[in-house]
């Protein structure tokens, strides 16, 4: 941590970056994003297991962009998000500095996005055993039971879109739910509209979701909506050999193999 603070301070002092996006102590036991713009404020930076917010979400925020070049404190999920975003043309080496944090909470600085990509080869996305268990439990249910489960879970959603706002991959300037010609997804929150919204969200994240759980953490009423993206991650693993963010080579859902396997097309 001291190393990280030292480096952050250096960067701000030399003007190499204008802001360091990191974590700080929040209300009670919460942690939150900190935007350190002065070298003397780096002491606010912290990092521990509570820091689960995916900071990459701020990289596309106009106000943050206006401050100037950022350095970002990036544990693994953030690193993954950065690479995926970079592959989607959202930024380049020139406009971002990455202060990586290893799973052992060690500081590691990355000079280039390509280095991050290489580094991530050792940290492939692996769905946690706890979540796998839930997925398996759901898989074992009958279709009707699963349907009832999701109707029950998704009905209370009041469409605050915190899941969308917290997700680094949901950076569209105009989300599909905000399109009204045609109105693909009902604006009001009701069972059908909620199911459609969450279904579409999962589809849009298929092959892009870095499994950071930011969406589920953000949900004020604790809907386990990350199960949907986890399921697509699993399916991508089974059918297309798995997902890992890469800078080049196209996107899992926009590329194909002529021998992609399926058994349901007549």
């Amino acid at each position, binding site marked *: 941590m001291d190393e990280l603070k030292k480096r952050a301070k250096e960067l701000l002092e030399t003007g190499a970056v204008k802001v360091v996006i990191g974590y700080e102590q929040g209300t009670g036991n919460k942690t939150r994003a900190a935007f350190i713009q002065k070298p003397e404020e780096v002491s606010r930076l912290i990092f521990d297991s509570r820091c689960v917010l995916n900071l990459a979400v701020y990289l596309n925020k106009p106000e943050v962009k206006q401050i100037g070049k950022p350095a970002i404190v990036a544990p693994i999920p953030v690193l993954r998000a950065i690479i995926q975003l970079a592959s*989607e*043309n*959202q930024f380049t080496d020139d406009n971002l500095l990455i202060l990586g944090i290893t799973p052992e909470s060690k500081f590691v600085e990355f000079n280039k996005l390509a280095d991050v990509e290489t580094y991530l080869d050792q940290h492939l996305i692996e769905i946690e055993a706890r979540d796998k268990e839930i997925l398996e439990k759901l898989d074992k249910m009958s279709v009707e039971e699963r349907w009832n489960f999701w109707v029950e879970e998704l009905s209370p959603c009041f469409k605050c879109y915190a899941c969308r706002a917290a997700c680094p991959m949901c*950076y*569209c*300037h*105009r*989300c*599909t739910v905000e*399109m009204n*010609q*045609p109105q*693909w997804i009902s604006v009001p929150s009701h069972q059908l509209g909620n199911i459609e919204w969450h279904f579409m969200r999962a589809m*849009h994240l298929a092959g892009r979701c870095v499994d950071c759980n930011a969406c589920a953490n953000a949900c004020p009423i604790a809907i386990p909506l990350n199960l949907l993206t986890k399921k697509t991650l699993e399916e991508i693993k089974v059918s297309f050999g798995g997902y890992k963010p890469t800078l080049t080579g*196209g*996107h899992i*859902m*926009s*590329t194909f193999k002529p021998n992609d396997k399926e058994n349901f097309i007549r």
Partner: protein
Amino acid sequence: MSRIGVFVCHCGENISATVNCQKVAETASGYEGVVHSVDYKYMCSDPGQTLIKQAIKDKNLTGVVVAACSPRMHEPTFRKACNEGGLNPFMCEMANLREHCSWVHDKGDLTTEKAIDVVRTQVEKVKRNQPLTDIKVPVTKTALVIGGGIAGIQTSLDIANCGHKVILIEKDPSIGGHMSQLSETFPTLDCSQCILTPRMVEVAQHPNITLYTYAELESLDGFIGNFTAKIRKKAKSIDEKLCTGCGLCTTKCPTKKIPSEFNEGLGFRPAVYVPFPQAVPNIPVIDRINCTYYIKGKCKVCEKVCPTKAIVFDQEDEIIEVAVGAIVVATGFGIKQPDFFPEYGYGKYPDVITGMQFERLASASGPTFGEIKRPSDGQVPKKIVFIACAGSRDEAKGIPYCSKICCMYTAKHAMLYQHKVHGGESTVFYMDIRAAGKNYEEFVRRAIEEDTVKYVRGRVSRVYEKNGKLIVKGVDTLLGAMPVEIEADMVVLATAGVANPGAEELAQKLHISYDGYKFFAESHPKLKPIETNTGGIMVAGACQSIRDIPESVSMASGAAVKVACLFSQNELTREPLIAVVNRCAAPLYSTCVGCFLCQSACPYQAIEREEIKDRSGKLIKSIAKVNPGLCQGCGTCVAFCRSRSIDIQGYTHDQVYNEVMALLNEY
């Protein structure tokens, strides 16, 4: 407000026998926005079409639905009629009541109900149609031909003879390609050079053809009708304008022992050289890797002897930029090289040679002046073995395909050998004889029957040297898998034809697709075998798949026709049913967020990058832009775009969404 006209066709009795057309028309007249709805016996007839045109005028229609046969049948007819009636042709849609309804269902209420539903979807669709105009793309009437083999030569001459400009580039110092290396050609046994060189000269002299040899494509931008190609002219170290082709430099060059590429390593050439005597252009190049001056910094013998002072040692590669409207790729094929056949000892035993090397041995202009001699000791081989399918049709070697030309040239080689070496004994090991071509089978039969070439159906497992002989171990499957062992003096491998080593790189520069073997992919295997998926780029000859000379030449002429068709218009007209990226007011400019994932989804490389800048030139955002010249309108990008920023004209989100709504709800 929409003013839609609905025209229900009876198609004689084809539709009305099972569908209550009158009821369909009546129901449609009740829909919001429908101001005119009639049924008629034959809508496609003159009076039928007049009915539509008249209604457009009388009722001031903004859209037309013709409920009749399949749009694949008469959509052009009715769109044309609408156009003549004063309505934009794309404001006309068809409801398929015949192929999809009356012909496949029995008479009854359910069938009529279906017809009503189908009409309703088209009413709701056409309400959301936009008037569209055909897309016009200007055409630069110059063609770029890449590769100066027989295919490139033929296509260049054909295009040039149509009166269009051609730029032909060839990576080697001379055009001519593989064909110039051949001795004689099957099935006529006419001399390859005798028929080729006049064409090469014609290329050089054609007023419409600009020839750049020793040149390669550096990069390509643009799209059909409007490409910009950068060509790298590699430094020949010779001033082409001054050189008279006298050849003094080549005879005086002290470095003479460089294996000749043209002779497949069976002969030598100097460091300053013309690949072969009939080369076009007849201008030497200095091979800088082997030239003493470039290695050691002194020599310059060529400079001293050159009477016109044409040697320029410090010449640099030159990049020239040309604007072209179409491209023909004719880069030919490569030959699988040594190390590939350890079991045949290629590369280890000098007398195991490839078919192309045999061509050089048999060629009158070759290193032995046409005499068949062993490379090892110059002896005339008394026994020779030809191994067909050396690599081809062998999955273990990674080449499951048939190289197609080997059966024929092997028969030719054996025949030539028998003609040249009297009393010689030749054996061909083969898997199958594939001689499907005009006079091909007859040719092979002649080799077997008249020239007594021994054909053994079976594969060779190993070739090894023992006591100065090449022991060929094979099997004769027609004699019950009997092992065959031949002590040969020379072995010729009919090596597999493969894609050129640089094919992949070139394909990426051109943005054309290629198959797993790196052969360039045609747009459609049956109906578009010459076009690539990238509009305006054609393929000819063996770069698409192994081809023999007549096939290469026909394909080349075919490509020339495609180019000439393209050049026959001043502007290209295309149906406007293509994708477009939405644009809106500032500060958004477009809902596109520039993730460019659509780029990898597009099969046509039609998605480009557009930079939106403010007045001071500062970049605001990069968004996708569809090149109307390249887009074919498949809509894959549309379904893929998360923010629905791309839409496809004619099948917009608004149209298809409301079609579905109309199908499933009452109106």
